[in-house]
């Protein structure tokens, strides 16, 4: 999901960088105020851990393998606010050392994978976890949140690509959305499995971290993630007027977009190729979400230890 250089136009890069800077700024500002000094090394080490975990390949089928993205895992383990900083560090290092994700798209990548993924994932986790208590709730929440956060981050990424005029929305949406609906299943399963392993070894690690984020901060971060989704996804998905184009026009940084899009403006036409009608996208989305939730529930049922203490 790392966007390389050259895929975003100026207005999308500027807007996503501004949002990412705002989100990471809020997280850093709060962390500076409430993060106990003894937790500071934990951020760096957790970032290194996420990076190391991404290098372990989970075999899928026919020689292919996938790996963890880690947004929800980090959010559950160190709290959403700290996880934003952790994932930002991972992405910055990947950009500078691995050249994974372009320098000009760093803001967009941070917005997708450190903000939207972490914050929406944590919100879904916190909400779903209550549906079933104890370990089962943790597994259910983590598995479903892993799926939701992967899909939402992918949609945000798709929206950025479409808004940049490089790829038409009706091409990039089914491609990114569809692929990540599958990848999300793996992400959810791995996140849940890792959390059970942590719960078995050191159960207190799962509960101690939420103190590191305050409700107010979570709200602001959630707002920024929502603005990101509204800005990049809703113009296509809902047929609302293109907010970013309007803002770009108002602020007068339209002319930075030196390159005229070669493809005519992405059409607000939704749905899979060959299927017409406005109801297709919501239907596919609803069915996908429901399937993921049921699978998460089944996973939680099978994996919950028989005797809960």
């Amino acid at each position: 999901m790392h966007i390389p250089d050259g895929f975003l136009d100026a207005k999308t890069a500027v807007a996503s960088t501004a949002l990412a800077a705002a989100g990471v700024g809020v997280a850093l500002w709060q962390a500076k105020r409430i993060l106990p000094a003894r937790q500071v090394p934990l951020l760096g080490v957790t970032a290194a851990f996420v990076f190391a975990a991404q290098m372990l390949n989970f075999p899928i089928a026919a020689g292919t393998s996938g790996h963890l993205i880690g947004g929800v895992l980090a959010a559950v383990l160190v709290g959403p606010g700290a996880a934003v900083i952790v994932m930002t560090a991972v992405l910055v290092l990947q950009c500078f050392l691995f050249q994974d994700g372009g320098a000009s798209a760093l803001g967009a990548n941070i917005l997708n994978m450190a903000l939207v993924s972490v914050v929406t994932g944590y919100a879904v986790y916190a909400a779903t976890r209550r549906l079933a208590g104890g370990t089962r709730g943790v597994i259910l929440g983590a598995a479903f949140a892993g799926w939701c956060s992967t899909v939402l981050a992918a949609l945000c990424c798709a929206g950025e690509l479409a808004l940049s005029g490089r790829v038409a929305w009706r091409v990039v949406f089914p491609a990114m959305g569809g692929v990540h609906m599958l990848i999300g299943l793996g992400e959810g399963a791995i996140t849940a499995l890792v959390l059970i392993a942590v719960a078995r070894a050191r159960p207190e690690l799962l509960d101690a971290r939420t103190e590191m984020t305050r409700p107010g901060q979570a709200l602001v971060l959630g707002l920024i993630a929502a603005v990101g989704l509204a800005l990049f996804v809703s113009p296509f998905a809902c047929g609302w007027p293109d907010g970013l184009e309007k803002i770009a026009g108002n602020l007068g940084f339209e002319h930075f977009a030196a390159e005229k899009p070669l493809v005519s403006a992405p059409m607000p036409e939704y749905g899979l190729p060959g299927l017409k009608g406005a109801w297709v996208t919501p239907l596919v989305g609803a069915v996908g979400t429901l399937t993921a939730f049921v699978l998460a529930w089944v996973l939680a049922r099978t994996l919950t230890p028989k005797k809960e203490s």
Partner: protein
Amino acid sequence: MRHDFLDRYSRQDSPLHRVSAEAKLACAFGIVALTVAVPVTAVPYFAGLACALVAVTLVARIPFGYLGRRLLWMEPFVLGVGVLTLLQPEGWKVFLGIVVKSTLSLVTMVLLANTTPFAEILRVLRRVRVPGLLVTTLALMYRYLFVLVDEGERMHRARAARTFDQRRWHGWTTLATVVGQLFVRSTERAERIYAAMLARGWK
């Protein structure tokens, strides 16, 4: 994991390695921004930049084979997203533009990483007032990245040497246990690091 497999040539000596990190960082970002912003029809610009990058590679004495391998490693990501553009009318023009732009940007960033040690980049980030907590996190991450990747691989190898179960699901659960255990060890390591930092006067 070899500690220098990411930026193998960043610590050698050449005229370019001696240039200040600030200048190199500003230059690399300028080039990337310009490359992304110019229209695809500006062929002379792309050709000129390509020649300049070749010259820089020669001056910095970075082997072309290494550069090629890094590109080969990253290019699938570019092509993977790029191929989506082919699914629309006139898509090949967009595709060509994207591939040229991202490849040139990629080479620029590979050259930056291999002429500037990461510690220098962190120093510049601190200097341009990137919040201290983020820089500290990045510095600690860079320091322990190799330790944790090695630890993860060691645990993974130990696991593989002891289990012979080929069932996929079982493989997933054991691998997830490795990851979970890695996190537990990471937090314990973070506690030791904190004690060590305090002992050395960090505040």
